């Protein structure tokens, strides 16, 4: 916690300064509220609209977590099968990269046509946005296992599964966590996009309603909440990383 305060005060100070500047400019130039609301107005909206906004926030957080879990599982399964079965790697990896070039926005309507408006297309959207960083990071981690370590394990008679569980998986874990950090933040974005496909609740729905009724202050509340959620997810992954990977604390390759 001390560490956080020591490291965190600078960006917080900059942010505060920015808000003050923003407030002053809005007050002086008298920009209309629907164009750019002042920070105080946004804060007011957060406080007064909290009870009606809260269910949206929870709904998005929930679906983001679900999507993230599915996406992580898919990402890891893909990475491990690509790593363990060379012919799958050669034939599927290029396709995976290609799949990342299809914009989710374009894919979303298709998913609705195929799977309706339920939970499934939403989970698919989030999975598509978050599995790839995990797959790439894990594959990278597997590849970085030093030859000397593998050589020792082979000479000592390690089988394929021992090689994986005792060497490759633990060695790749820090990389996997780098991927998880990226995916965790992506999952919130993915959740919001998935809600645009049609949902009853969620930040995505709230945002659409707000912008179509020119409630710009509410749009900012939505943006802010997305940022806070992403940060929260990120923090959870960092905490998990600290718990699971204590051995690299001195290595300096992590932050």
């Amino acid at each position, binding site marked *: 916690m001390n560490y956080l305060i020591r490291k965190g005060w600078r960006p917080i100070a900059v942010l505060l300064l920015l808000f003050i500047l923003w407030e002053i400019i809005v007050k002086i130039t008298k920009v209309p509220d629907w164009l750019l609301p002042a920070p105080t107005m946004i804060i007011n909206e957060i406080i007064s609209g909290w009870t009606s906004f809260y269910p949206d926030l929870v709904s998005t957080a929930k679906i983001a977590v679900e999507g993230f879990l599915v996406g992580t599982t898919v990402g890891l399964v893909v990475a491990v099968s690509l790593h363990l079965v060379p012919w799958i790697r050669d034939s599927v990896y290029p396709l995976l990269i290609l799949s990342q070039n299809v914009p989710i926005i374009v894919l979303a309507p298709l998913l609705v046509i195929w799977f309706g408006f339920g939970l499934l297309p939403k989970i698919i959207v989030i999975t598509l946005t978050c599995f790839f960083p995990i797959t790439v990071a894990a594959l990278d981690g597997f590849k970085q296992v030093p030859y000397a*370590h593998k*050589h020792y394990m082979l*000479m*000592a008679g390690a089988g394929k599964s021992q090689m994986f569980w005792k060497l490759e998986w633990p060695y790749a874990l820090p990389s996997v966590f780098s991927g998880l950090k990226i995916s965790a933040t992506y999952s919130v974005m993915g959740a919001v996009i998935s809600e645009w496909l049609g949902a009853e609740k969620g930040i995505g729905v709230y945002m659409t309603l707000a912008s179509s009724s020119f409630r710009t202050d509410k749009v900012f509340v939505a943006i802010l909440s997305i940022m806070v959620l992403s940060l929260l997810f990120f923090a959870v992954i960092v905490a998990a990383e600290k718990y699971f990977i204590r*051995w690299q604390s001195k*290595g300096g390759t992590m932050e």
Partner: protein
Amino acid sequence: MSHLLVDHIVKNFGPNEVLSDLSFSIEKEEFVTIIGPSGSGKSTIFNLIGGIMTPEKGVIQLEGNNIIGKRGSISFMPQTPSLLPWRTVLQNVLLGAELQGKKDRDKAIEMLHKAGLTDYVHARPEELSGGMKQRVAFIRALLSPQSLICLDEPFSALDELTRLEMQKWLLSIWEDYRRTVLFVTHSIEEALFLSDRIIVISAKPTRVAAEFKVPFKRPRDESLFLDDKFLKWKRTVTYSLKNVGSEKDGDANRRTYPFRSI
């Protein structure tokens, strides 16, 4: 029956002829050192015995059983310690045994005590010095259940002083826990100080160029390095190693010098 028998081994990497008709054997609880020019195929010999490569021709037997292509029949200590950074020292020394499914935690702790690593049993490898890491790697090899230990230039990355310490340490541990050892080194002094027998191999294509039985009594200590007899032996081995680079015809050069210094 020899503990390890390597008979008429041929190994090529494509057009690169590395081992040509290599033969030697090791007796039970013998400490044998292979010494030869860099690139002559010393590590390749280990890879063949360890079963991660297969020879074009020849026989490799451990206690009479064919071990060509069979991994896990020997215990190994590499040049770099290759300790797993997420494991503690204790978990690391147990790795070799764990891969074979037979861990003995109490024995591991006892050996770490004997090795002077009492304070580091639960430390991670990053906290150890180079010499300590190699001790851990050697204990890992000793705790592995296989009967033959192969060491591939284990001390060559250490500085001179640490290396001498490690050689003395290795001898004392080995005298307590006698095992059959096949050791590879660049250093003639190291070979003479440690081994019962030295096998000199030629440059590529590699075969055995000379064999020496080392006559010094055990237990040995570092005063041996200054012994006249030791220096004479050093000259002899140096001379035989100098010759191997150029000569091509095999058996004519293969000489054995049993219990005789020149």
